[in-house]
């Protein structure tokens, strides 16, 4: 079979495999898949709750220049969407129709009735004042049946944020939309935000803010920018190949191994994993970029007049390929599903790319070297890589090396993020960084510990350090608390009430039904259980966010609103062993740091194995030179990244792995012994490889998206350094 026929066959197979992979492809965008396995309770909470909670599910709607009535109509329209859990502010009238049936039925155990005549006197005075303001029939009925407003108080306490009065500022009204969608469900988020925007269309100047909005808008921006830059890089690369080879057939021959490797890697992923993460695809193809070097070397050395033997070239390539596979294979043992996917994809892709390159590139007969040709041994200069390494290490030592802050990877405008934070503070929204977590062995122990924690927080609420909290205890007291309240009803529930009522303006005859209901409740207790709340259409989903089972333990979350002093909360929660203030930012940074350590460890082992492998093929001096050059290029790229980007992120570490692979490739070709006639081909091939990588990643470094910009910058610096060190890091001694 001729190489043309093989090329055609591979092209057809690539198309088929691509279609098959596309049909099986099931995408996921859950960032938790890329995080390492949690090792602490706080880390477990972070990975489980990513994409949920106050950070990921709140949308702020800003509407300038409208009246209260229009805002109320807008809120009512928004509430009708099935993916919107609630819209704040909510009505705070004494309206019985707003009380869920389960709350009304169990109101007796949801709050404390006054336990003294003075306590009842205060309550009845408040009801008198309420009636002086509003005496609608349903208000009268509610107060007559529930004079202590146990039902309304339970709902109000639970709906923290609904009572925040600061929903309009400077002629701008704000609505707070709480969605029922996890943050990573981008398709549904996109539909929902599009729906909200269409409702806001008649209101000029209306704006949406919040994490879901940024994610959706960012998704479009990233997709558009990635498409644009990919197109630019692809066109630039194509032009380079056309200029170099002047042959469409050869250009196809260079591109086909990479394409075949990509679809093969993709198909393997769909066979091994149920879902493929978006980051896997994005970075998998990046890591596979090294595969383009293999056909470039083969085509360059196959040109007429070349004295290199195919066997010799393959011997060098094999070393580079084996080293790359060792490094990418390390990802498979990282212990994180996302990185495992990346390792599988890159490993499979490289293997297939190599096989395809070997099969479709033409074999050639090398020309015999001229009689007067000399054989050059390479004298290796160690001072260039060591100098570069020393400078890079000095730069690394004087700047923060690692950047574990995931927030720094967001491409959202910093001014927008500041405005977002200020808005959250002003509106008293639940804090997105801090929350209290209560762990216990049983549901009841978790509820009791939560009650103790809320009690400890009360002074902070009354002093303004906290403006509000949201917790399961506000709507589901522990059985112990419910039984205690039940007992109170039996002992002195009516006595104090009757005494206070006789001294008030209120008519005792109107409260007979309340007294009878109280007596019935005290005789036949009806305690509230979690399942009843879960089954309520209004409360169920919120309840599940606040109390859930995690393995053999129960976890209760307390969301903090308007938190001014986290240290005060830490100090108070220390009184309750089961409670812990979770700093999600610190926790995520800790996870990233642990993960980085694991990854670096695995890569270090891969590096040692590569060194051992190289040592078995060549002299130690040459191996040291190769590793010194590669290490210097990686260090230089790392130093550049810390200088320009403030530190290496996890994604930069992956980029450095690529730099190592490319750098080793260049150094291997320049370090080998060769005839004088091979110099031209070697120089041409390596320069072409370096130029192709520089073009692609140089274009990527122009992106405004921090992750893409970072990878582009890191790889560009590394590739340039690796090429220069390999090219001028040795000189040839003429032997004869």
């Amino acid at each position, binding site marked *: 079979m001729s190489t043309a026929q093989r090329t055609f066959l591979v092209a057809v197979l690539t198309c088929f495999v691509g279609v098959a992979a596309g049909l099986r492809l099931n995408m996921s965008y859950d960032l938790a898949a890329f995080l390492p396995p949690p090792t602490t309770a706080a880390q477990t909470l972070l990975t489980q709750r990513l994409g949920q909670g106050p950070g990921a599910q709140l949308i702020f709607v800003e509407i300038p220049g409208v009246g*209260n*009535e229009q805002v*109320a109509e807008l809120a009512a329209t928004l509430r009708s969407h099935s993916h919107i859990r609630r819209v704040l502010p909510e009505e705070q009238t004494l309206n019985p129709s707003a009380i869920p049936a389960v709350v009304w039925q169990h109101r007796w155990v949801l709050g404390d009735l006054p336990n003294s005549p003075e306590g009842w006197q205060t309550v009845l005075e408040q009801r*008198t*004042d309420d009636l002086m303001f509003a005496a609608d029939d349903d208000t009268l009925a509610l107060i*007559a049946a529930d004079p202590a407003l146990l039902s309304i108080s339970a709902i109000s306490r639970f709906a923290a944020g609904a009572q925040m*009065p600061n929903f309009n500022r400077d002629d701008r009204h704000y609505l707070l939309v709480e969605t029922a969608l996890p943050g990573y469900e981008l398709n549904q988020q996109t539909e929902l935000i599009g729906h909200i925007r269409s409702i806001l269309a008649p209101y000029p100047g209306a704006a949406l803010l919040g994490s879901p909005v940024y994610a959706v808008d960012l998704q479009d921006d990233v997709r558009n920018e990635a498409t644009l830059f990919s197109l630019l890089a692809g066109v630039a690369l194509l032009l380079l190949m056309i200029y170099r080879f002047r042959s469409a057939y050869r250009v196809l021959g260079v591109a086909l191994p990479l394409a075949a490797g990509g679809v093969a890697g993709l198909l393997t992923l769909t066979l091994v994993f149920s879902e493929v993460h978006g980051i896997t695809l994005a970075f998998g193809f990046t890591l596979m970029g090294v595969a383009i070097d293999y056909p470039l070397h083969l085509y360059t050395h196959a040109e007429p007049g070349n004295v290199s033997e195919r066997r010799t070239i393959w011997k060098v390539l094999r070393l580079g390929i084996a080293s790359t596979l060792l490094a990418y294979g390390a990802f498979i043992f990282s212990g994180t599903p996302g990185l495992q996917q990346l390792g599988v994809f890159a490993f499979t892709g490289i293997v297939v790319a190599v096989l395809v390159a070997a099969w479709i590139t033409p074999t050639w007969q090398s020309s015999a070297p001229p009689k007067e040709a000399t054989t050059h041994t390479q004298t290796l200069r160690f001072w260039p890589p060591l100098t570069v390494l020393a400078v890079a290490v000095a730069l690394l030592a004087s700047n923060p090396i690692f950047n574990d802050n995931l927030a720094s990877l967001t491409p959202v405008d910093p001014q927008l993020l500041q405005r977002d934070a200020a808005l959250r503070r002003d509106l008293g929204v639940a804090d997105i960084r801090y929350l209290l977590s209560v762990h216990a062995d049983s549901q009841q122990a978790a509820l009791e510990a939560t009650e103790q924690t809320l009690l400890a927080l009360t*002074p902070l609420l*009354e002093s303004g350090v906290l403006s509000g909290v949201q917790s399961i205890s506000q709507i589901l007291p522990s059985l112990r608390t419910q039984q205690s309240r039940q007992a109170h009803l039996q002992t002195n529930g009516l006595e104090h009430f009757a005494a206070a009522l006789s001294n008030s303006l209120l008519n005792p005859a109107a409260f007979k039904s309340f007294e009878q209901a109280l007596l019935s409740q005290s005789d036949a207790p009806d305690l509230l259980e979690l399942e009843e709340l879960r089954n309520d259409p209004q409360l169920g989903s919120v309840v599940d966010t606040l109390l859930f089972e995690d393995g053999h333990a129960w976890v209760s979350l307390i969301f903090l609103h308007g938190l001014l002093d986290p240290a005060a909360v830490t100090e108070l929660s220390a009184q309750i062993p089961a409670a812990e203030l979770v700093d999600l930012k610190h926790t995520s940074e800790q996870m990233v740091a642990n993960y980085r350590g694991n990854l670096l460890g695995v890569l270090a082992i891969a590096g040692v194995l590569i060194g051992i492998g190289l040592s078995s093929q060549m002299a130690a001096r040459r191996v040291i030179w190769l590793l010194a050059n590669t290490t210097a290029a990686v260090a230089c790229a790392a130093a550049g990244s810390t200088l320009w980007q403030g530190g290496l992120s996890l994604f930069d570490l992956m980029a450095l792995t690529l730099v190592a692979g490319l750098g080793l490739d260049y150094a291997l070709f320049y370090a080998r012994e060769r005839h004088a006639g091979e110099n031209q081909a070697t120089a041409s091939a390596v320069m072409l490889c370096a130029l192709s990588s520089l073009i692609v990643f140089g274009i990527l470094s122009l992106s405004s998206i921090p992750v893409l910009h970072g990878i582009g910058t890191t790889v560009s610096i590394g590739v340039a350094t690796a090429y220069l060190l390999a090219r001028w890091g040795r000189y040839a001694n003429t032997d004869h």
Partner: protein
Amino acid sequence: MPVKVLPLKWLCVVVLSSLGITNAAVSDPSSPLSEAQVRELVGSLSFPDEVEVAFEQSQLNPLFKRVSTQSGVMLKSATQGLVMQVTHPRAERRVLHDGAVSLTRQVRNRHTPGERSVTRRMQLDPSRASHLVLLALEALLESDQDVLFAHFEVSALRNSDRWEVQLVPLSPALKQQISRLRFHGEDRQLTRFRSERDDGKGGYSHYLEVRLQTIQPVSAEA
């Protein structure tokens, strides 16, 4: 005309007005106005801003043993809307502005000494009787005829500089809770407003009455 007969005359007028008869069939110094005249009257009221008035509110409903009273000071502000500061028997601040009302009270802390301020904010819902009263008050003070005529059957009586505007809810459901609203005034000053629910026996099961008396204009510095 003997003074003691006057309340009966007024009652007749009120009853006849509530039946939708705008022309009183009595010889009375107060003349019922046509709709155009009513609109003109309401449009001309335009109560001045920054004028402080003392108010006394009395109310009766089935949950009260007897009439309950509150008193305080009310101010119509160009920027804040209508502010009612209740001073007796317990402090409460009510702010009515642009179709919403907020109530602020001091609440004793349960676990620490002292009190804290708690505010509830509500969007006025015209389907609720108590909110309808507030909407009517706000509309009258702002001379917003459209709101009045949108929710009520409006009639008025005038006797030189004294006037009375009577509102009957258009909604049958709300008419069961508010038989009528009556606003009384002299020139551009509102002196009294009252909400009544008939008990079907010639009396009232519910009523709310607020009497107002000007204290002094509020200076710009104040």
